[in-house]
């Protein structure tokens, strides 16, 4: 149900883009107004969301420790998995953000007759996630060639590297393959595993299908239904220099692609995609396990009702005395 609804939503977006490509008024709407609105929503939304997270304090240092603590000098502490220094914590975060360290731990449990629970390696999710995120980043960076003149050398170098195998014309870019394959795998996994399908919401499918639509239209334009890239570049340069030109009539794929992108970035701050920013703030990962070394201050720490020693001694006075234990007041 959820997946069909999401598919429907994505098809509607593509249809609007495709239809809009036919009329020049609509082209201006999808090509100029929507992108500016989407970017504005993205920037404001991101700021708002991150500010909102940041406005909630971190009252306790609740690091999840995944290795040996720093204690006795002759016990080797795990500076990375149970970091106790700023550097260690930064390294732990870097591994988490760049290489998805925690996801790399993933295992799959299986109940076999016996009964016997066994845990197997399960790296596919990690691999799929890593392939998707990194390829998507490279694809985004490659797109800078449409927005910069002259195109920086590193962007050109990135594209060259990406087409390393020099297969076909235009040459096949590895990240296109990885991106498509990773997204397909992630969708397959979401639908194929009964457990993951059970927990999946409309929004989970929507994000995936939106990305798939974005990638598919891009790939189609690059390899199959080639469009006038010069016109696209001219138009893109207009957008970034705040002097938007009349959107060119370059076919429906381009407008579907653009509308997918705009939907994605406008939707981003209101969705789970905010994990991109949130991962930096996760208190179980970005705090050092130095709790007993350095006091963590809770800004809203308030006095509470406690049972004081005096009250306790008062209540049990005679029993304490009879037991021969020392008293404050005889």
């Amino acid at each position, binding site marked *: 149900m959820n997946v069909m609804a999401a598919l429907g939503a994505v098809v509607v977006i593509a249809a609007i883009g495709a239809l809009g490509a036919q009329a020049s008024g609509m082209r201006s709407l999808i090509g100029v107004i929507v992108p500016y609105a989407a970017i504005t929503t993205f920037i404001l939304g991101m700021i708002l969301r991150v500010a909102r997270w940041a406005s909630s304090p971190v*009252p306790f240092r609740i690091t999840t420790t995944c290795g040996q603590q720093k204690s006795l000098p002759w016990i080797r502490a795990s500076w990375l998995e149970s970091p106790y220094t700023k550097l260690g914590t930064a390294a732990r975060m870097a591994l988490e953000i760049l290489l998805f360290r925690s*996801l790399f731990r993933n295992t799959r449990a299986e109940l076999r007759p016996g009964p016997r629970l066994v845990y197997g390696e399960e790296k596919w999710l990690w691999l799929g996630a890593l392939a998707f995120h990194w390829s998507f980043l490279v694809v985004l960076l490659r797109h800078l060639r449409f927005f910069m003149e002259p195109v920086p050398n590193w962007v050109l170098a990135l594209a060259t590297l990406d087409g390393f195998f020099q297969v076909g014309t235009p040459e096949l870019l590895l990240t296109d393959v990885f991106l498509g394959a990773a997204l397909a795998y992630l969708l397959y996994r979401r639908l194929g595993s009964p*457990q993951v399908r059970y927990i999946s919401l*409309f929004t989970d499918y929507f994000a995936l299908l939106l990305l798939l639509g974005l990638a598919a239209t891009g790939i189609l334009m690059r390899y199959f239904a080639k469009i006038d890239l010069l016109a696209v570049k001219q138009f893109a340069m207009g957008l970034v220099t705040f002097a938007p030109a009349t959107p060119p009539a370059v076919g429906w794929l381009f407008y579907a692609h653009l509308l997918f992108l705009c939907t994605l970035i406008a939707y981003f701050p209101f969705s789970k995609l905010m994990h991109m920013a949130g991962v930096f703030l996760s208190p179980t990962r970005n705090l050092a396990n130095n709790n*007993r070394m350095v006091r963590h201050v809770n800004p809203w720490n308030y006095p509470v009702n406690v*049972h004081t020693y005096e009250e306790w001694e008062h209540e049990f006075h005679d*029993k304490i005395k009879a037991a021969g234990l020392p008293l404050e007041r005889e």
Partner: protein
Amino acid sequence: MTETTPRPEQLVRIDYRPPKKSWMDPSVEFRKGTFCYSALPKNLEYLGLPNPREWQPFDKDWKLPADWKRIILEGMKERLEKYRSFRLFMDICVRCGACADKCHYYLGSGDPKNMPVLRAELIRSVYRRYFTPAGRLFGPLAGGRELTEDVIKEWFYYFYQCTECRRCSVFCPYGIDTAEVTMIGRELLNLIGCNINWVLEPVANCHRTGNHLGVQPHGFKDSIEFAVDELEEITGVRVEAPIMKKGAEVLFIVPSADYFASPHYYTLLGYLMVLHEIGLDYTFSAYASEGGNFGLFTSHEMIKRLNAKVYAEARRLKVKWILGGECGHMWRVMHQYMDTMNGPADFLEVPVSPVTGTRFDHARSTRMVHICEFTADLIRHGKLNLDPSRNDHWNVTFHDSCNPARAMGLLEEPRYILRSVCRNFHEMPENTIREQTFCCGSGAGLGTDENAEMRMRGGFPRANAVRYVRERHGVNMLACVCAIDKATLPTLMEYWVPGVEVGGVHEFVGNALVMKGERERTTDLRGERLKNKEAAAHA
């Protein structure tokens, strides 16, 4: 074990296929053996907690306060503003499902709402409906869900079906910690009086008498003296165990089960022997006579209320630093909450072992040291005369308790001790120890008899790993450093892996420790004949 508990072979028929009905349907069946009974009104009244009344989870009418919905939503708002963890964990989950089969309750029950992701979604769906624009506008399409009385019942069922062990948080790519979600969920439930007696009675007792069991000062003294007498019978050495001694160097805090329950008691004997042997100037306290803190399973405020006694008593007794016994959740509180809540401990000194001179620099702010850190340091410096052959009748494996492993990183200290005092030691499989350790299935206040079936389900992954080393290496002893483990693992072992006993690390130190002036030992602390003595008897 109650009579209705299914046999292991029945229980292990676990169906992992999700049901037809959507998880958004909150209806829950309160089946005997899978939930805990409600808190008695007297306990809530004593603590000044809201809505004390007679009720049970299987009742149709939970007698919630008239404005329960407002209380919950305002409580959520307040906590979203106070805890970045809570707000963030409500927002950033992508439902990748990596956590799903990491939960012992899911593995043991197959109930999809025991997948950590879904356990959190139970509250996230309400968050989205009432606190996000998309949820307000689009409801279920944006993953939002109405807050109804059935949702409260569902929360109660599943937030008291999580042991806050944090195993899922190790695997989550964003470090989302279900313990944090469950803790806040329970805090919310407490606002409308939906809590369980197995947690609230120890809390009330601890508040009043100083410990979970409600042991009063004279009872405390009797227990400790009983241990001293028994130790003299076993070893011929009379140890000193001072109580409320002002000016002692160290205040020693142990979980109350150590002096009142078995097999914890043998751990206490072990502590007493070590501390006597090295001549540590220490004291117990009858006021701060509990290391454990069931406030952790109630609310952050309750953690602080109960924990306050530790520093207060250290200050009153004018000790220099604090030593803590073997207990899991106690150490989550001591390590991650105490200093922040009730510190700074500037009236104490940085702990230094008077025997080895080691300065415990890693505890320089909190000024509290774990007994395993302390004893490992003694052994390393050769300060204990140990005869590991006295543990030869035990083939030992080590169960990392959740909190020392995942909220502290105390992994090597107990292992170093065990390897020094036992000659037969075998690790369980890698995926089931250290930071990946499996919970006993009864932590976070769920270790009660009426919850027996759920406990056996939750403990299944742990038991399964023990069975592996039992079959492969003949392991007959599961060592651990947690009072809840010692209370609940014996039942779990009896159910899944008969023939495996449970004991604390310091019990084995006690067995191996050769004391000055001791008489020849023929039994261990449990009264079991030593292996070499047995051989001699047969010869």
